[in-house]
Every structure is written in structure tokens, then in C-alpha cells.
């Protein structure tokens, strides 16, 4: 024993040998090495014993009666399946062709007769090492497969939950949105959300979290909740952005953030408001002229800056009905070819220029990416929104079965919002919530919000800030208008907007009177109302909308005070 290589672990070894003398000799050597021995006198016996006893290693004579060693080796290897059962051929054959035949039949090694106990022991040990290695590899492969299966299961579950949250908006229902996202884009960190505001504007968010997989999906959940919650309540982009940024800053680790473009498309105002933090340039496509205005990233991504340092300033661009906004994720531009060259913005511009049918833009881009790379990346997100005339204001579903017994029906309230507040606070969501306490107004929530929003922005922009809506007659003036708005608002240190609400019961139900006053210089009401309602005019849109949606509108105090009325009938 001392002269032999040490045995790692006792094995069960099958000896298939037709010569009884050789069988005895080999059995003795191997037993002495500490292994358990099984014996067979021909190939058929060897296969049978293997099937029942599953020895870990086989010593196989090549030439035997009934069934030779080659055939027996083939059958044993088949029975063994994926596990490695080393077969060492015992042979007095000398021709290389015969030796090669041993290996071809599935043999792992051969041992020439007469037997050398030292070589035999070493070969058994070497084969045992291989056998263990194979067993470990198989075990780890199965483990990985199980983990992978588990992971896929978790991702499917997470995606199902996420889809409920993320797709609760209008992304799949709105007729004017087209998008393309890989099915598991969520786990690439890409996020696409869309929802209507109470007045029928559409908010859209295309986001891209750093990192992939579950962490990105986890960050996306609160973002979607804030987006939908605040959009539905009538908050504007800036408040929604501030809330999203603060929330992500609070919950995400330092090295995680979310690049995002947020849009507010308004058919009423024929405009799109944009905030881009860290996303590639999207475009506003003017269909009439073919011009594409880039929506450049002006900000750090969401979740990087503290609330105090966060910059919520947006840009506003005019849009005609039928114009489109196109957004994309960096997966499009960063698609690399075989030489690590990136697709890039210049090639995207070429696709735009070559595009003849606007409805086939996505297909054109996909084709260009495929031609560039040969296969698409799995984190490509694109979305295109067309400005359509405003959808009908939705009738809010009754929130309570209660027919209004607990509804406040006789009250009034007045607010005065002064310069410091006007600068950075939007009182509309709060006022809307307050008015919706009156059950009779709930059905008209959308119209109510639209009218309030129009009157408030008229009071602020034309009244307090003294901006001239005539500026908005063309695209250039439009941009100038919003630049002036931001400048004057930033410098504002006096002025006010007052809002008076009066709710009173009537025989049939009730009436709500809303009066909005401003500190501006007023305007010539008769002249303004005499202007023709021009459907494609960028400016002066508000008043006709207000008159259309409320029961009565009247101005006083030289245009500085406007009063509207909403009536309702008692609920059955």
C-alpha cells in the first residue's frame, strides 16, 4: 500500500475480464488499494451488473466472448447518461488502430497487459479526479439552472405587479401614442408613463434608471405612483418633478438616479411643455414644415440634487394639431456595431431625413439599427405622441354611493395669493380638491379644472405679469412669451391673484360662483370677445373655452375681475 498513490475515497470498481486468472489478479490488486470490486466474465454480464450496481469506474477487457468490450463500453456510457463513469480498457492489443478504437467506443484510457499495480492505481486516481470534477460541474449547472428559473419567476411576478402600476395610465388606451419597448424593458431600467390631467392635457414620462434589473424596477414604482397621483390631481410638471426628484433622492442609493424627459402636451394651448434631465434629445416634429426642434437635456437626472438645488424650469414649444413629439432612450443611440462604433445622433438624423411616411418612423429606425448592427439591443425605447384635438373631458365616476347628504352646500371662501406665493406655488390642485367636496360638482370636475386653470393663468400671466398674448402668434414669439413669463415671475415682488368661491343651494340643486381678480391693468373685454375664434391661433384661446364650459361668464372692473358660474341638479 505504501508504494501506491494514496486513495482519496474507496470506489466500487467493475472488472470485466473473460480470463478467470486475470480477474483474480486484478481483483486482488484493486482490493488491496482499498476499493470494492465487482466482476463480470463478458460484455453482457458487465452491462447487467452496471445497470444494477452502478459502479463508479469500469476496467474493461477489449476482447471478450458473447459481447466484446467495445460494445459493452458503448452501452454502459449510454446508461451512465451525463455522469462520468470512467472506463479503462485492459488490452494486450498493440496496434495504434486498436487502441484508438478503445477510446472511440467511449473508453477514457487504456492499460496495457501485463498489469503494473502502480500505474493502475495512479490511473484509477486520475480518473476519479475527472469523475468528481464532472459531478461538481453537473451539480453547479443544475444549481444555476434552478436559480435562473427562480429569478425568471421573480421577474415575471415583479413585472406583473409593475404593469398594474405603470400601465394604469393611458399609455395603451390613448389613440395618439405609439411606442416601442422591449418586453422586459423594465429590467433594463426604461420606464414609460402617460396620463391625462383633469383638464385633458397629457403628461408623458420616458425615464431610464441607472443600473438594470430589480433595483431599477423598484425605483420605478414610487416614480409611477407620484406621476399618476399628481397628474390626476391637476399638478403641473414643475410640482410633479419636484416631488419625483425629492422622492428618488430620498430612497435611491447615491449612485442611482433616473434620467427622464417629462412632457405636458396641451391640445387646448397647442403647446408642449418639456423638462429633460439626462435623456438623449427628443424632437418636436412640425409636420407642415418638416422642421424638427430638439428637446435638449438641460438638467441633471432625477434623484441627484437635493430639493433646494433642484431646477424645475421647463421649456414650452408651440404645436399644431397633427404635429408629433418623438422621444427615445439611449439604447437607440448607443447601439454598437461590430467595431464598437455607436449608432449616434447623426445616423438618427439621417433616418429622419430619409423618412417619407411619418407613421413608419419606428420601422425605419429599427431597420437602420438592424442594418447597422445585425441585431437589436434589448433596451431600446421609443415613443411618439401626436397632438390631437382635446379628448372629451372625462366624467369622473361617482366616488361615493352616498347621494350627497354630507356634501357642503352653503359656504364661501376667499384666497389672496401674493407675489412670493405666485412665484412657485400652484394653488389649482388644492382648490380643485376643495371644490370636489361638493358632490354635485364632481361630474364636472374636468370642466371645472379647465376653467379654473384658464382663469388663473390669465390672471397671473396677462394680469399680474402683464404679458401680451399677441406675442404667441408665431413659434418665435411663443418661445419669447414663455421666456418673459419666467423672467417676470422670477423678479415679481408685488401683485396678487384673488380667488373667491361661493357655494349656495338652489331649489334644483346648487350653484358655485367662482370669481378671480388680479392686480394687473385689466383689458378691453368687448374688443377681446369680438375677435373671431380662430381654431389654429396660438393665442387668445382661453376665453372661448371658458365660455363653452361654464354656465355664465362676466367681467368687471375693466377686465381685472372675472366671474363664472357652475350649476348642478340635485343627485337622485
Amino acid at each position, binding site marked *: 500500500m505504501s508504494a501506491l498513490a494514496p486513495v482519496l475515497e474507496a470506489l466500487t470498481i467493475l472488472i470485466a475480464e473473460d480470463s478467470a486468472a486475470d480477474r483474480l489478479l486484478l481483483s486482488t490488486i484493486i482490493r488491496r488499494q482499498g476499493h470494492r470490486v465487482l466482476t463480470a466474465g463478458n460484455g453482457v454480464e458487465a452491462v447487467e451488473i452496471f445497470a444494477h450496481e452502478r459502479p463508479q469506474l469500469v476496467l474493461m477487457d477489449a476482447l471478450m466472448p458473447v459481447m466484446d468490450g467495445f460494445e459493452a463500453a458503448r452501452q454502459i456510457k449510454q446508461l451512465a447518461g451525463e455522469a462520468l463513469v470512467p472506463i479503462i480498457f485492459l488490452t494486450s492489443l498493440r496496434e495504434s488502430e486498436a487502441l484508438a478504437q478503445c477510446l472511440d467506443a467511449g473508453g477514457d484510457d487504456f492499460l496495457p497487459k501485463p498489469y503494473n499495480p502502480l500505474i493502475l492505481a495512479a490511473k484509477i486516481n486520475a480518473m476519479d479526479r475527472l469523475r468528481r470534477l464532472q459531478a461538481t460541474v453537473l451539480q453547479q449547472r443544475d444549481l444555476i439552472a434552478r436559480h435562473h428559473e427562480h429569478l425568471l419567476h421573480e421577474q415575471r411576478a415583479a413585472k406583473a405587479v409593475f404593469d398594474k402600476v405603470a400601465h394604469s395610465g393611458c399609455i395603451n388606451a390613448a389613440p395618439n401614442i405609439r411606442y416601442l419597448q422591449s418586453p422586459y424593458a423594465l429590467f433594463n431600467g426604461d420606464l414609460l408613463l402617460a396620463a391625462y390631467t383633469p383638464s385633458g392635457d397629457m403628461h408623458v414620462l420616458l425615464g431610464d434608471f441607472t*443600473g438594470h434589473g430589480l433595483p431599477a424596477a423598484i425605483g420605478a414604482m414610487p416614480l409611477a405612483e407620484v406621476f399618476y397621483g399628481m397628474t390626476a390631481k391637476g399638478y403641473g410638471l414643475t410640482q410633479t418633478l419636484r416631488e419625483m426628484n425629492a422622492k428618488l433622492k430620498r430612497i435611491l442609493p447615491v449612485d442611482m438616479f433616473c*434620467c427622464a424627459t417629462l412632457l405636458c402636451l396641451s391640445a387646448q394651448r397647442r403647446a408642449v411643455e418639456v423638462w429633460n*434631465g*439626462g*435623456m438623449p434629445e427628443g424632437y418636436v416634429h412640425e409636420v407642415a414644415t418638416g422642421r424638427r426642434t430638439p428637446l435638449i437635456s*438641460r438638467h*441633471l*437626472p432625477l434623484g441627484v440634487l437635493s430639493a433646494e438645488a433642484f431646477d424645475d424650469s421647463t421649456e414650452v414649444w408651440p404645436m399644431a394639431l397633427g404635429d408629433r413629439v418623438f422621444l427615445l432612450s439611449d439604447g437607440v443611440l448607443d447601439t454598437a456595431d461590430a467595431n*464598437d462604433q455607436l449608432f449616434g445622433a447623426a445616423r438618427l438624423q439621417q433616418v429622419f431625413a430619409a423618412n417619407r411616411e411619418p407613421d413608419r418612423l419606428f420601422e425605419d429606425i429599427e431597420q437602420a439599427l438592424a442594418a447597422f448592427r445585425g441585431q437589436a439591443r434589448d433596451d431600446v425605447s421609443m415613443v411618439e405622441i401626436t397632438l390631437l384635438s382635446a379628448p372629451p373631458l372625462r366624467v369622473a365616476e361617482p366616488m361615493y354611493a352616498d347621494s350627497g347628504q354630507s356634501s357642503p352646500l352653503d359656504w364661501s371662501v376667499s384666497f389672496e395669493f401674493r407675489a412670493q406665493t405666485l412665484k412657485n406655488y400652484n394653488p389649482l390642485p388644492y382648490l380643485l380638491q376643495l371644490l370636489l367636496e361638493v358632490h354635485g360638482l364632481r361630474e364636472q370636475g374636468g370642466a371645472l379644472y379647465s376653467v379654473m386653470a384658464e382663469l388663473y393663468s390669465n390672471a397671473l400671466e396677462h394680469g399680474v405679469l402683464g404679458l401680451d398674448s399677441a406675442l404667441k402668434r408665431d413659434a418665435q414669439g411663443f418661445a419669447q412669451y414663455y421666456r418673459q413669463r419666467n423672467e417676470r415671475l422670477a423678479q415679481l415682488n408685488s401683485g396678487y391673484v384673488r380667488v373667491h368661491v361661493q357655494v349656495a343651494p338652489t331649489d334644483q340643486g346648487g350653484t358655485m360662483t367662482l370669481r378671480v381678480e388680479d392686480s394687473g391693468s385689466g383689458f378691453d373685454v368687448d374688443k377681446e370677445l369680438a375677435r373671431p375664434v380662430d381654431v389654429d391661433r396660438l393665442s387668445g384661446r382661453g376665453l372661448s373655452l371658458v365660455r363653452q364650459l361654464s354656465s355664465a361668464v362676466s367681467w368687471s372692473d375693466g377686465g381685472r375681475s372675472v366671474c363664472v358660474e357652475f350649476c348642478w341638479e340635485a343627485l337622485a
Partner: protein
Amino acid sequence: MSVESEVSLDGKKLTIAIKGRFDFGSHQAFRDAYERFYKVPETYIVDLKETTYMDSSALGMLLLLRDHAGGEDAEVRVLNSNSDVRKILAISNFDKLFDIS
């Protein structure tokens, strides 16, 4: 990819140079580059002269370094970025947080 770091003789300046791709694969090496120094330097330099590519997780690592170096008060300079890398930094507007040249 490789990350090398070097402290100036007076111990006031730590320079971290990234060669090749600056992406998630460099995460541990990049953190080690500034966390293993006991003494806190006044200035951090991230040298991207030999950086060929940078992704959003690299931007995250720069934020980690900034946080480590004192957040708002940190002095982190990003040097020698090539045009591709500079594009990435520009889209993210990281020049508002870092001194980039």
C-alpha cells in the same frame, strides 16, 4: 479596463486614472481607489485621458466619489475626457456638479 490612483507628495491631491471602459466592471476598483486612503485629500482628480467609453453606472460612481469627498463641498475635477465621454457627461449635465475640463 484598469484603475490607477496616485496621491500627490503633500497628500492633498488624489488622482484616479481610468483606462479603457469605465462601466460597472470598474465599480470595485474605482471605490478601492479612494476608500483605501486613510488621510482625506482636499482635491480629487478623475483623469479620463485613456477612458474610451463611459456608461451611466460610471456616472453613478462619480456621484459616489462626490459623496465620499463631502457632497456639496466636494472638490472633484474630471479631466481630459474625449469627445464621446464628454457627450455623455454633457447630456447628463454633470458639469453642474463637477469641474469638467
